[in-house]
Each structure stands twice: as C-alpha cells, then as structure tokens.
C-alpha cells in the first residue's frame, strides 16, 4: 500500500532532475499502518521561476477575453443578432404537437363530450384532474361531469390523459401555456374555462 516514488521535476526535460522521495498513499486501509504524514496526489507545483512570466501577469489572456466580450457586444449592437425575443409582445413559435393547456371538446349541441369515465384521472400521474359526475338525460351517454377541474400547478403536461380518453374529450393542443397569476387558486381551471377559454380556429 505504501510505495516510494521518484518524482522528477515537473518539466521532466530539465537537466537537473531533483529526486525527491514522496510517499504516496492511495487509500490507507488500515490507518495504523499509515505514516504519520502522507501526501495525497496533488499536482506538483511549479517553482515561480519556472512559471511563464506572461502567464503570471495574465495580461494577454485578459486582453483576449476582453476582445471576445466586446465582439459579442458589437455583434449584438450593430448586427442585431441576439437570440432573445421580447416575449409577451412576440410569441415564440409553438410546434403543432406541443403539449399545451388542456381543452375539453364539445358535442354539436355545445354540451361537453366527456362522459366522466375517470380514465384520465386514473391515468394522471400527478393527480391533478378532479371529476364529479352526474346523470344526464342524454340517452347516448350514462353520465357527464358536473365538475371537471384541472390543477395547472400540479399538472406535469405528460399528455397521458389525452392518450387515456376513450372518446377524445380532452386534448392538449391549444398552444396556450399558463401565464403568471397572482393567486394559486387561479391555476385551477374549471370546466367552463377548459371548454370556452381557448383560442379560435382549433381543429374540431
């Protein structure tokens, strides 16, 4: 475990190779066997006369770095090549399959297409969908949601609810992503908001 190493000078090529005896201990298994003082494998320090003077002063490196920064500044100031966009005024491009805020689909008569089967709430990994069902008169379906809340702060936008829905009642294609609110309660979207507070011209 204890080995004695001849450590030559850091530059190796110098004619005077000073031999120092350094005791290296990689991992003392038994501390009783370890010597009282031991060196960890720190890199050998260059003596000050061996260090390049210019590097000691840092000046060329500083000037090079300042060139880089002023280059960025001039590029941005004159050529206007900033990747940043002014967000609220300019919206970023949102791809078609981006999973954005949910919407609930409607039937032709305007009532909600959801049948309160609870598939989405079951599939939801974060438990953000809260449904209360009630019976409806419609002969086609047994029941419909009376309350359909999604907590936007819990939602992880995984899209499992969309996959799970058997009747294509919930979709995540609005292109809306939640903006800032001043109350947490405002992030709980109710059925009305999910059905009607959506952009126009979305696919049916």
């Amino acid at each position, binding site marked *: 475990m204890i080995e004695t190493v001849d450590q030559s000078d850091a530059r190796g090529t110098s004619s005077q190779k000073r031999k120092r005896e350094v005791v290296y201990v990689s991992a003392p298994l038994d501390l009783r066997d370890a010597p009282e003082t031991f060196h960890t494998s720190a890199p050998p320090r260059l003596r000050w006369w061996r260090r390049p003077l210019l590097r000691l002063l840092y000046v060329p490196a500083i000037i090079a770095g*300042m060139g880089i*920064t002023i280059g960025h500044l001039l590029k941005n100031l004159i050529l206007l090549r900033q990747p940043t966009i002014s967000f609220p005024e300019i919206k970023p491009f949102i791809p078609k399959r981006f999973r954005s805020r949910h919407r609930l689909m409607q039937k032709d008569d305007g009532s909600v297409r959801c049948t309160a089967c609870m598939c989405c709430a079951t599939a939801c990994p974060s438990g953000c969908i809260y449904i209360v069902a009630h019976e409806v008169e419609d002969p086609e379906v047994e029941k419909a949601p009376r309350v359909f809340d999604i907590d936007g702060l819990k939602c992880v936008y995984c899209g499992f609810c969309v996959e799970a829905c058997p009747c294509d009642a919930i979709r995540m294609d609005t292109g809306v992503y939640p903006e800032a609110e001043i109350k947490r309660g405002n992030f709980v979207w109710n059925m009305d908001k999910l059905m009607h507070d959506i952009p126009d011209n979305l696919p049916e």
Partner: protein
Amino acid sequence: MTEALVLILRPLGALGFFMTLIPIMIWFERKGCAFIQDRVGPNRAFIPGLGLRLAGFVHNLADVVKLVTKEDFIPAFAHRGLYIAAPMLSMAAALLTYAVIPFADDLTLGSVTFALRAVDTDLGILFIFAFSSLAVYGVVLAGYASGSKYPLLGGIRGTAQMISYEVSLGLSVMGIVLIFGTVDLNEICRVQGQLLFGVVPKWGVFLQPVGFMLYLFAAFAETNRSPFDMVEGESEIVGFHTEYSGTKFALFFMGEYVAMAIQAAVIVTLFFGGWQIPWLPTSALIENASQVLVVLLGAIAVGALGFGVLLLRFHRWNKVRWQDERKREGIILAILLGFGPAITALLGLTIVLSTDLSGSVPNVVASVAQFLAFSVKVLFFCWVFIWVRWTLPRFRYDQVMFLGWKVMLPLGLLNLVVTAGLRLLWL
C-alpha cells in the same frame, strides 16, 4: 459678483458631471452586460402615462423609487450611529475627490481667467489620494456596525484589500510625477499636449505603460470592482454591506459608481492627456475655432444620425407593431435624439460657415471641445470598468493579496527606479 458665481458654479458643475455619470454608468452596466451575454437587457420599466422606456434607462428611476421606499431596516445588534454613518462616509469620501480634476484648459473670458475645475489648487494627485484613502472608513465601519460576524469579516477583508492596493496606486503614479515634474493635474494635462518624437502625443500611457497597467489594476481593486470585488462577491463570499438595504445600500452603490467615475477621470487625466485633444493644443484650437466648431457640429450630426438609424433598426428588429407604444417611442426618440440634433447641427454648421467668430467665443469653443474630448475619454474608461467586470472572473482572496503585494508592489518599485534612472540619463 462674477468671481462668486464662478466659485459656486465650478464645484456644482463638476459635481453635476460626476453625478450624471452615475445613471449613465448603471445603464451602461445593465445594457452592456446584457449585450455581452447575448441578452436584450432591461427594457420593461416605463413611465406610466408617457409610456417612455428609453431602452432601459427608466430602470434607474424605478430603482431609485424602489430603494427609497423600502423599509429602513436596522438590525437589532447593529451599532446604530455607525450603521447610519458608514454609507454616508463612503459616499462623501468618493465625492470629495472630484475637486481637483480639470475639465478643460483655463478659460479666458474678457480679462478674467479661471481654471475649469472645482477647486483651484496645485495639490492635484495628493488631494485625490488623501481623500480617496478615507473611503476605507465606510467599508470598515459598515462591517463593524452591522453587528454580525460575516459583514465584519467582509469589512476586514475589504479594508485589507484597499490598504494593500493603495500602496501600488501611489507607487504607479510616482513615475508619472517624476516624468512630468508636477502633481498638479492641470499642469500634467498641459504637458501631455506636447509631442513625443514629433509624432505621438506625449501621453502618460506612452511614457509609462507599466505604470498605466499598475494604476488600472490598482484602481479596480481600490474601487472594489470586479475582478477584485471580494468586498461584494455576492454569490460566494459575504461582503461588508450584507446587512444593508434601502437607501443606505443605495448610497454604497452610488459611492462605488462615483468612485469608479472619478478613477476613470484620474486615469484619463494622468495617462490619456486629460482634456487634450491629440495633436491640437489649446492655442491651435482657439486660432482655428470656426473649423473646430465645424468639425464638432459635423461629428455631432453624423453621430446623431447613426444613433437615430440604430434606434430605428432596433425597433424594426424587435418586430413590434405600430400600435405598440414601444414602436412609437422608438420613432419619437429617433427623431428627438437622432435626426433632430443632426438637422440642428447641420443648420448650425451653415450658420458657422457664414459668420466670423470674435471676442471670447473662440475660447469658449476651445473649452467646449476640450470638455467633450475629456467626457468621451472618461466615458470610455467608465465603460472599461464595466467591460472588465463582465469579462473576468473574480479573484480568490489569497490571489488578490498575492497580486497586490508580490506582483504589483515589486513591479511598481521597479518601474519607479527605472523611470528615475531614465529621467536622470535624459536630463
């Protein structure tokens, strides 16, 4: 009467110059660092009603409102009196030093000649050193009075740094003093109007390159700017003003910026000819006043035109619609600050070309030209302070001390000895 007016106006003018530099530098800092980092920077704060944003300049106002209306909090264990006095001391020490910096050559109006600086004294650099050395009190007292051990350590650290670099600061200037044979800043500026080998202006930076580098680094350390901003180092090391908030913190902040502006002015005065326009001494400026005025107005016209075009390009690039108030503001600003001044300058140009200047007007023109040259240089060095901050990483504390005592002090001594030897050989 005139004397009294001059006596009041000179300090006020100088004070106004350096106080105006504060918001400009803060704006430089914000917008400059944003552009260096490929960001847009602040552009949200606006004046309600007017909708003016001024490309982030209004953020200064917003900051002032925020800092002034904040709770004036004093920690429970703080030493009340010192806690309140420390930021004032910091600001006062920074503000005392502007007094001896000349803005232009002596101006002759009729039969009266007066120096264009706040206090007409020949103490020069010594005055600046004496009062900037008092700035340490602000740091040390803030650290002590906060009644908390981390600011105390920060204060000790900052004090040690400032004391250490004051030595290098003084040493690096001694070479300049040796060469020019005076400590009066106005005299130093005047000597720098001569030519070296008939080609290069006799600026301090050409005569004392090593001294200039040392002074620059020491000035960074002295004003606690990056890369020597251990005193602040908000992210990894606790500084002396951790316990400060509100107006008191604002005073520290402004004190730092004033100190920076004054250091920039001192660098310009010592090493870059001060108010000297290269190759144009004051007498030549006065003799050719009308040409100077033409060139000045032309430069203003071209600069304003470029500025206006830049503003318009910015707003086109921003892709904002006409209904957006920012678009309107951009166009209004481009007209007000860009095309308007350009046209006015061109009109003035035609007037100047058709008339002869007489009386003391040429002297005033020369002074204005020199003042503009001085301002441009000072603004550039203010920018250098910011530029370096957003380029270099912060030094570790032991590296700061190493650099101060083991690199800069010996280099400064060597520079002094070599300068003295060369001076002996030449004379």
